[in-house]
């Protein structure tokens, strides 16, 4: 089995993952624009939670095609149907169905435990993503988007993660938050 199959096998094997992340956004010249930290959780297929804790407070919760984006500081929350929006973010690689995803990317082996995925479909909001894994867990993703910006993501899986259930991916906007849901919901 070639290395590139390993990445899809690995992603498929990762039924659950949770831990902390550090994300660095840099511009086309590599100048650091912003560093964010927080917590992530993935339950495949289809459940995904991304909580930004520094420097601000945001939460993204995806369950199936339901995506909530809650900004605590702005007290604003929006709910979107991911099957409507065409943006595909690299983090959906963690939560998506890898058999389906396999068809949508070309893979290039960069080294042991590291593969570059290039999307073959237009909606991908990025040009390429390099995935690095260690001990059967994804530990880094380096994304280059179509404007030449890079997003370097370091994932630190929890040592002894408690089991995740679908209940961990429910979201109800707190009272007083300005909520927006498209009318066809």
């Amino acid at each position, binding site marked *: 089995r070639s290395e590139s199959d390993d990445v899809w096998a690995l992603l498929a094997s990762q039924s659950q993952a949770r831990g902390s992340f550090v*994300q660095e*956004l840099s511009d086309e010249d590599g100048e650091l*624009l*912003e560093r*964010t930290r927080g917590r992530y959780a993935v339950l495949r297929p289809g459940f995904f939670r*991304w909580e*930004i804790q520094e*420097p*601000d407070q*945001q939460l*993204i919760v995806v369950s199936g095609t339901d995506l909530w*984006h809650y*900004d605590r*500081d*702005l007290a*604003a929350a*929006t709910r979107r149907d991911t099957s409507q929006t065409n*943006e595909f*973010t*690299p*983090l959906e690689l963690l939560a998506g169905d890898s058999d389906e995803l396999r068809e949508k990317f070309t893979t290039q082996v960069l080294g042991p435990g590291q593969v570059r995925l290039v999307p073959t479909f237009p909606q991908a*909001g*990025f040009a390429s993503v390099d995935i690095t894994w260690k001990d059967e867990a994804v530990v880094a993703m380096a*994304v280059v*988007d*179509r*404007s*030449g*910006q890079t*997003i370097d993501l370091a994932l630190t899986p929890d040592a002894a993660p408690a089991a995740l259930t679908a209940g961990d991916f429910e979201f109800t906007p707190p009272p007083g938050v*300005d909520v*927006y849901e*498209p*009318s066809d919901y």
Partner: protein
Amino acid sequence: CSTLPAPPRPAPPPPETGQLSEEARWAERQAVIGTLENWRVRGKVAYRLPDDAGSANLDWQQTGGQSSLRLSGPMGVGSTEIRNEGALLRVKRDGIERLYPADAAPWLSGGQLLPVPVNSIQHWLRGVPDPAIATADLETENALATRIEQNGWVVEYDEYREAQELSPGLALPSRLNLSAPDSGLTLRIILRAWEP
């Protein structure tokens, strides 16, 4: 940095110096803010339209008359960069650059064309009216603007903070709301870090 609460009700000033000092202090503040030629501010914006809403990270760089701002989603992917070029705006998204008139540019991820008075917003972000256009309304408290109305836009200031890195001792807006009633657009902005 210290947090100034929403502009506190000033104690009633002594009669003879009261009103004049507010106006004089406001004029002096406007002059100081006007000298800030080069600055950068990072924060967030939540936009609300009758049929859409969302929020984005905001990174605004001002160099003299040149504004360049970047709007990106929470996971950094797929940002929008906007620069002003005279009365036009150059909008870059997904590597594609296009020029738009300032009163109809797709600066939000949904791509809707919206009025983006960048040349005015660069002043409103600093808590002063755009000197190039008429001011329909200006309210201040403790020499800090609480409301500015210009060109059909209403700007309300909820909170100020000391911009330590940019100009120690100078209070700049940290929470403000912009609304353009005729387009039904409201923007809630948080400004977190001011830098030279």
